[in-house]
């Protein structure tokens, strides 16, 4: 009896210590990454980084103003594709989606979500780069937009499903046709959550590098318009980090920090949108 008790106590202690250890490792890695990036990035960051073009090879200094603008333009195209398609698709799934077609759409969204991002890049290379003979902002933006769709669809659907059925019934009982119920009652009630989901979907593709390698490529200069190769923060980080120059490494750290702050900012914004005003179910 006593022997059993001691053994159980020992096992309990070991298992508890293991879970604490695993948690500590997880958090430790996260804080090490964030801290290291913040330290390296902050010491490399200067005003020049935001307002200057990359310096010619061999010179030190310069910045990544073109990559910041480039990322902005890429994300704008991505949002123009991902937000309406994802939102509308989510509305259809939540409000009309029954039967085999809805199942097929959900499955397709999950499959698309699982397609490796580099494959998306290759496909866009074949469709939007090769036929035109040059890399472009447009091709990169479309690649990011396609990657955004499945996340945006499922987020929209989830948040619309959280809107209580009693609100739909209330509107129907007032003689509202179904589309008015959706547009005037269900979507406004779920809007905060949907907006948060769409921001997170955009933030997720903001850090994608692989689909841009074949589509937007990179550029050491400004990229006017939409049909020329453009710099972007993720690809710049990739290029600068593997280059043999110490100064480029520091710039890559700075770009990493800027990208992290942008994505983190989007996350905080989304969380704020979710918590303010509470959930739509609070009726």
């Amino acid at each position, binding site marked *: 009896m006593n022997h059993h008790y001691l053994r159980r106590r020992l096992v309990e202690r070991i298992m508890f210590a293991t879970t604490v250890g695993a948690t500590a490792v997880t958090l430790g890695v996260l804080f090490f990454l964030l801290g290291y990036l913040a330290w390296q990035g902050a010491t490399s960051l200067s005003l020049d980084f935001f307002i200057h073009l990359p310096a010619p090879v061999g010179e030190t200094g310069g910045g990544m103003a073109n990559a910041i603008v480039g990322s902005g333009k890429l994300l704008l195209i991505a949002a123009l594709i991902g937000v309406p398609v994802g939102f509308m698709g989510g509305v259809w799934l939540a409000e009309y989606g029954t039967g085999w077609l809805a199942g097929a759409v959900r499955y397709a969204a999950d499959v698309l979500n699982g397609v490796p991002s580099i494959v998306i890049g290759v496909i866009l290379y074949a469709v939007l780069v090769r036929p035109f003979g040059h890399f472009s902002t447009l091709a990169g933006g479309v690649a990011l937009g396609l990657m955004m769709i499945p996340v945006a669809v499922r987020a929209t659907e989830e948040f619309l499903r959280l809107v209580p059925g*009693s609100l739909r019934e209330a509107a129907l009982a*007032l003689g509202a*046709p179904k589309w008015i119920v959706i547009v005037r009652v269900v979507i406004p*009630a779920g809007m905060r959550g949907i907006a948060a989901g769409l921001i997170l979907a955009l933030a997720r593709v903001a850090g994608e590098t692989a689909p841009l390698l074949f589509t937007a490529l990179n550029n050491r200069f400004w990229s006017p318009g939409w049909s020329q190769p453009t710099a972007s923060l993720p690809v710049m980080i990739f290029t600068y980090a593997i280059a043999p120059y110490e100064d480029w490494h520091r710039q890559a750290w700075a770009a990493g920090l800027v990208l992290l702050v942008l994505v983190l900012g989007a996350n905080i914004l989304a969380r704020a949108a979710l918590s303010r005003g509470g959930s739509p179910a609070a009726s």
Partner: protein
Amino acid sequence: MTGDGQAAADAPTKIAVRELTVHYGSTRALASVSLDVPDRHVTACIGPSGCGKSTFLRCLNRMNDHIRGVRITGRVTIDGEDVYAPSVDPVALRQRVGMVFQKSNPFPKSIFDNVAFGPRIHGERDPVRLRGIVERSLRQSALWEEVSDRLDRSALDLSGGQQQRLCIARALAVEPEVLLMDEPASALDPIATAKIEELIHELKEQYTIVIVTHNMQQAARVSDYTAYFYMGNLVEFGPTERLFTNPSRPETEDYITGRFG
């Protein structure tokens, strides 16, 4: 008269129900119910849980259409017009037959926008007229005095009883002829309940009201006619006073005297 509510009332008939049978999948929720709902009176539907009284109510404005696997046979006519005729648009029907639910369900919008929702979706755009409709509806639901100075505040900030009266105002703003109430006071405290009951009493001057209630005292207090449902059947229908003092069916007497249910 027993089990058959045709022409049990002295008042003219507003809604005539004939052999209404409802199945949810293979479950029969309502079995061949026939009943005449009198115009501008309050008709209460009582009976134990699952007796079919809510199903009956939801057939009158075709809210059951939205439930998957539902099968409805029989006839429901309002002013002689068949509610389930293929030519009838359930959306248009629900403008004539308003509904108040058990759990108050205001939209997460302002008090004003809640009441104005119905008129707006039916095409009223004029702000002056909208304001008039909102005030009239809130006065009718005895809420105006309490909220007139904060119409732009969220409806979700109101108390439970106020929210329910807001839902009544919202239903009245569409100017229906019939008001269906599905246990409108079951989630409210006695004071709020008394207000709703008083309100029902005033509203029957203009509206035909059908109310489902679990509370037999409430049925006795607010209604002119009472229908007793059991296991999907209409057991008895008649003037409330007679039904409660001298029921013609022993099952009704057992239920209202609390011997079962």
